[in-house]
């Protein structure tokens, strides 16, 4: 149990309209001159109310900015999920070493023999193998490399 857990902020409260907004907008913003007005109309809200609620949700940290969701592979980059089996006593030290690589985008500790799971994102597909080799050299551990072979599309990212 880490200390940070004791100081977690209270979860944000969403009302019914907030939930409809979040669920709708995870599907993406329409490419029309007034996209917020179009979404507001779909949800029977005024544009002003939608914008006000979005500002609040962004400030509360519930939503990230509206940005492009890129297909890393089609941008010519490399992307993979990799895992390590890290001895418990060594976990923090290895996490620091792995996180020091700028190509490491997420790193989660998970409950399994393979206990460190991270995403690698690189400028080119070839670079993945180089970074994996460098991580193996830095940690002395074997990297399990599990590149994506097929993506099955979910309609909503996260129903709230």
């Amino acid at each position, binding site marked *: 149990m880490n200390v940070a857990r004791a100081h977690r902020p209270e979860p944000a409260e969403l009302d019914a309209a907030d939930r409809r907004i979040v669920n709708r907008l995870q599907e993406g913003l329409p490419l029309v001159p007034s996209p917020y*007005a179009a979404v507001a109309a779909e949800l029977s809200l005024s544009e002003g109310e939608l914008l006000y609620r979005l500002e609040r949700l962004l400030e509360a940290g519930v939503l990230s900015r509206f940005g492009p969701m890129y297909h*890393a592979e089609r941008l010519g*980059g490399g992307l993979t999920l990799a895992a390590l089996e890290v001895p418990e006593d060594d976990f923090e030290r290895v996490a620091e070493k792995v996180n020091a690589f700028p190509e490491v*985008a997420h790193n989660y500790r998970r409950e399994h023999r393979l206990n460190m*799971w991270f995403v690698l994102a690189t400028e080119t597909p070839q670079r993945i193998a180089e970074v994996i080799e460098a991580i193996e050299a830095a940690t002395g551990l074997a990297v399990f490399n599990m590149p994506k072979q*097929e993506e099955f599309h979910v309609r*909503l990212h996260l*129903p709230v």
Partner: protein
Amino acid sequence: MSLTSPHRDTHGEVDPQRLRALLEGGLPLTERPWQALAEQCGMSEAEVLAWVERWQREGLIKRMGLVVRHHALGIRANAMVVWDLPDAAVAEVGRRLAAEPAVTLCYRRRRCSPEWPYNLFCMIHGTRRERVLAVLGDIIERQELQDIPHRVLFSLKAYKQCGGRYTREDQP
């Protein structure tokens, strides 16, 4: 480079690099957000929309979306559920699992046998572990996956969560 007289090539096309950089920063919360970006990179609103449409059509951008931050909503149980499926069945089961409302991501990945035989990964999030496990149990029953070996890996801690070079969603 002044913003009102952008660099246009001989065909009158604007270099879209600046628009790409602006998009990364996110779309403004104003009535005409594309117009606001257009003014900042010396394009017309129609040109901005045409570029974004083209990038979506070419598959560079999946969509102009937003990401829900699970943690801020109290969604703190994050389970990566992995399955060891026969190669012939993985696509069909993957599609079925992706259609489940509780599943937020579903990928086929390369197996790392013998230590790691699992080839289908999906994510299920919830406020509590018990809830996530109950939802998973229900999915297994309805999808008749009782005979498929699976593991549930709950996350204990996120050590690094930066977007990297481009906006990405939570990756299992």
